[in-house]
Structures are given as structure tokens and as C-alpha cells.
């Protein structure tokens, strides 16, 4: 069912070649919305859930942004298809496990996905490659207002937008930025950074949320609080914290180069070698090596033009994508071979690492 999504050559997170940046991979904003009077998904009957699903689908299909998009009923998707959509950050794990009558509407270039009957009736999500909090807020705000023109959204002057979980009340806004922080991880400063930003009401999670640690040195950093602040203030506050994190990351990278240059370049060189020559590779190993390759682009050891491909492999090396490409639910051992083969072939045309470039940097 999802072939068209995977074959799409202008998908935001996998094929947006121009806008990828050092440190920040992508920006994601989501809004939680519910309809007046109808019980929230968890307490709604099967009949109510399917009513909500079909009426929301219809309203969404009338919005310009969703023209030529795809709608999927979750119960029509296989486990593997769901996993692929989770790996592309188009749906949540919670939606995969939901009862009958849940769905997702995904627009053509995969910059927007709306989950129906997840924890709330509607979870609207907008994504963009790079660091674009304000721009993405403008887009999602406009989309949300268009949707409200035709749907009766539950709102209270005191509590704001009403959500099933009190942690989302008020704006219902979760702004999240995916950051690549190898400098802070290698120099063992990440724990300190996490503690510091936590005190400012900012949450840090791994690539796939809770418990996914520092795989690929990628972290999702997002606002924790949604009530008591305007959307623009939430975004400004998060943005300011993230700018500081970026500064710390850049400093950590230079410090690594200064203090343990040979060790760092050795790690990058080995990652390059293993990715181009390995024959068996787990998903975590691939992500950690790809992370170092991305760092090589930041250090100009590889041309900037390779960045977008590396970012795409971050997504395409994950277990669901590997199995989907192999056209079968294959065992982890076979997957590791497929993954290594894919990376070997795709990265075979990379130019040699140009270590001389570093001379200008230090």
C-alpha cells in the first residue's frame, strides 16, 4: 500500500537535497486537536471512532495541502508497513497499536501527516529538513486554522485546546528538532547538556523517543510545556536553547580536533572504511558509522553534495526499510547482510576522504 510513499523522489526527509544543514537534521511541529462532545479516541466506541475517521478524512481531503496525498486506515496496513512509516516519522508507535478506526493522511511530499484517532482525535504534524521553527509554525498554524473552519474543535478559554492528556493542554503544540550531536557525545558532555536543558522545560530523547539513547548521535529536543505560553513564545524559547546547544556542539567538535585529532579522524576513517567494505552490519552500527560520515561532511572531508544521501541512509538503513526493500520479513541476520550490501553499493562512489581540508580548520 505504501509503495508510492517510498518511491516518491521529492519526499522531504529522504530527498530534500538542498536544505540539509550541519548539526540540525530536521524540524517537526505537531498540534493535538479534538472534536467537541465526542469522547476522545480511547473512550470512544468503534462506531464513534469510524465516524470520526471518515469525517476527518473528508475534511482533510478538501484542504489544498493534502491534494494528491495518501490516506491509510491503520487496520489495512501490515506490521512491516507500519514500521516503515514509524521509521519515516510519519506515524507514531502509539497509532500502530491503536484499536479499529484509526488512520493517517500523508501529503504528497511527506511534509505533513495527520494522524486520526491516536491519543487525540487529530494529531497534525509538519516536518521540514533543517532548522526552521518559525517557518514550520507559520505553515502548521495556517493549516490548523483552515481545518478549524470546517471542524468543531474542542477549546476552552482557560485550558486552551482540550486534549486527552493534560500534558498537551493549551496550545497542544510540541515543537521538536532532530539534532546530530557527535561532538557532545564523544566529549562526554551530553548528560550535562540534557540536565541543563531539562531545567528549562526542554526534553531530550533519542532518535526514536524514550530509551533509544544516543544511537547515531541523534537526539530529538522538544518543549515539554504547552500551557501558559503563546505558541510563538514556546518556539522562541526552544529556538534560543537550541542555538546554545548548536554553539556547544560546534565548540565540542573543535575541542575534539584540538585535543584528540588523530583519534577522531581515525574514527571517521574507520567508519568510512567499514561502510564501504562491510558485509554484515546491524542497524545501530550503520547509524553510528553514518553519523561519523555526516561529521566528515561537516569537516569538509567529503563534499557537501553527499550530505543528503547520508541523511537518507539514516532512514533507509533501519530494520523496517531494509525488510521492505528485500520484499520480505527477513530475520535480523539476513537483514544485516542486506543492509551492508546496500550501503556498500550506495557508498561505493564516494570520493576519498580529503584530510588536507582540515588544515584550514585548525
Amino acid at each position, binding site marked *: 500500500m505504501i509503495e508510492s510513499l517510498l518511491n516518491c523522489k521529492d519526499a522531504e526527509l529522504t530527498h530534500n537535497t538542498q536544505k540539509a544543514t550541519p548539526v540540525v537534521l530536521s524540524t517537526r511541529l505537531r498540534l493535538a486537536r479534538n472534536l467537541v462532545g465526542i469522547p476522545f479516541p480511547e473512550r470512544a466506541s468503534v462506531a464513534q471512532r469510524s465516524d470520526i475517521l471518515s469525517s476527518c478524512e473528508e475534511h482533510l481531503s478538501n484542504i489544498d495541502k493534502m491534494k494528491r496525498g495518501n490516506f491509510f486506515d491503520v487496520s489495512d496496513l501490515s506490521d512491516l508497513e507500519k514500521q516503515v512509516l514509524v521509521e519515516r516519522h510519519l506515524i507514531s508507535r502509539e497509532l500502530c497499536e491503536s484499536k479499529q478506526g484509526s488512520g493517517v493522511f500523508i501529503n504528497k511530499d511527506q511534509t505533513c501527516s495527520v494522524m486520526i484517532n491516536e491519543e487525540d482525535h487529530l494529531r497534525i504534524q509538519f516536518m521540514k529538513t533543517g532548522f526552521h521553527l518559525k517557518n514550520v509554525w507559520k505553515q502548521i498554524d495556517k493549516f490548523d486554522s483552515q481545518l*478549524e*473552519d470546517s471542524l*468543531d474543535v474542542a*477549546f476552552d*478559554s*482557560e485550558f486552551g*485546546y*482540550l486534549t486527552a492528556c493534560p500534558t498537551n*493542554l493549551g496550545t497542544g503544540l510540541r515543537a521538536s528538532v532532530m539534532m546530530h550531536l557527535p561532538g557532545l557525545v564523544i566529549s562526554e558532555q551530553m548528560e550535562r547538556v540534557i540536565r541543563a536543558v531539562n531545567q528549562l522545560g526542554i526534553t531530550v530523547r533519542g532518535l526514536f523517543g524514550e530509551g533509544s539513547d544516543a544511537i547515531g548521535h541523534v537526539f530529538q529536543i522538544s518543549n515539554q510545556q504547552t*500551557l501558559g505560553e503563546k505558541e510563538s513564545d514556546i518556539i522562541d524559547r526552544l529556538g534560543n536553547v537550541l542555538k546554545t546547544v548548536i554553539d556547544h556542539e560546534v565548540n565540542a567538535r573543535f575541542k575534539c580536533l584540538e585535543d584528540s585529532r588523530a583519534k577522531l579522524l581515525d574514527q571517521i576513517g574507520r567508519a568510512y572504511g567499514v561502510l564501504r567494505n562491510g558485509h554484515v552490519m546491524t542497524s545501530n552500527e550503520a547509524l553510528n558509522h553514518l553519523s561519523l560520515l555526516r561529521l566528515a561532511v561537516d569537516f569538509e572531508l567529503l563534499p557537501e553534495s553527499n550530505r543528503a544521501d547520508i541523511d537518507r541512509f539514516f532512514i533507509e538503513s533501519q530494520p523496517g526499510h531494509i525488510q521492505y526493500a528485500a520484499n520480505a520479513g527477513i530475520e535480523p541476520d539476513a537483514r544485516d547482510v542486506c543492509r551492508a550490501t546496500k550501503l556498500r553499493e550506495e557508498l561505493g562512489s564516494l570520493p576519498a576522504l580529503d584530510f588536507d581540508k582540515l588544515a584550514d580548520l585548525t
Partner: protein
Amino acid sequence: MSESLKCSNCDNQATVHLTQIINSKIIKVDLCEACAQAKGVTDPEGFSLADLLNKSTNESGGEEMSLTCPNCGLKTADFRRTGRLGCSSCFSIFAPLLHPVLEDMHVGTSHKGKAPVVALSRQSAATQLQDLKKLLARAIAEEAYEDAAKYRDQIKCLKKDAVNLEFSQS
């Protein structure tokens, strides 16, 4: 430990002992195996929420009245157990239980962001007007004049629409 602790949720012997630091306050919870599972202790986010909810019960002290939402049937016990509301009508019913939770959870306890103006006016122009007036009063009290001007304009618009509607009906 000399005395065996009882589960803070039921009376079984507690085997799971948790300490969390929330807003620099130390919160200790003892649970039996079954309640630990039910409360989702394995999920840190879900757990701290249940914890916060428990705390507000303890603070209010003694027995509390059991409330039920007339629209979806959610009861106080359901809300305490899951930390979730059941529908949009729950908020007026459970507001007194919600306020202490929100204080610890968010930057403030009242909404400052955008409002679904069109949807609200369709739902009920009257309640919408009331809501906007509350927002306006608060914005003025907080000297947020930019917001106040925005709300004032929205109120004006709404009144004009209401007048037009009356004309067309008569």
C-alpha cells in the same frame, strides 16, 4: 528495612520502591508488583504523571468526592488511574482536580495562545464572546496590550456578525 511497606495504591505488600525528583521535590512511591505494572512504571513519562496525580490527592487530604462526566462517563478513579480525560465535557467537571496537576506541569495554568475563532463562533457566538472577554480582561490585567487589541478586534467582529444575523432573521 525493618517494617514491610504497603502499596500506596492498594493494601498489598509493596515490592517496588521509586523515588522521583520533580521540580526539586523528592517524591517517594511504594507499589506492589501488580500496581507497578498497572501504573506503567516502565514508561517514565506516564509514570511521573500518575505520580503527580497521586500527590494532589494526598495534598487535598482525606476522602474526595467521586465525580462523573455526564457526557462520557469518566469517573474520578479513572482519571486518577490513567491521568487522561475522556472528552471535551470532562474539563468543566474535573477542573478542580486538574488545576493542581497543571501547576506542576506547565509554565502557567491558563491558555495564552491562538483560539479557533471560526469554529468557536459557529459553536456558539455567545459563549465565544464570553471567552474572548475573559481573555481580553486577562490580557489587560497582564498589560499584554498587543494581545488585548487582538481580542478586542475579535469581539467587535463577533458582535457585528451577531447583529447581521439578527437582521437577517427578523
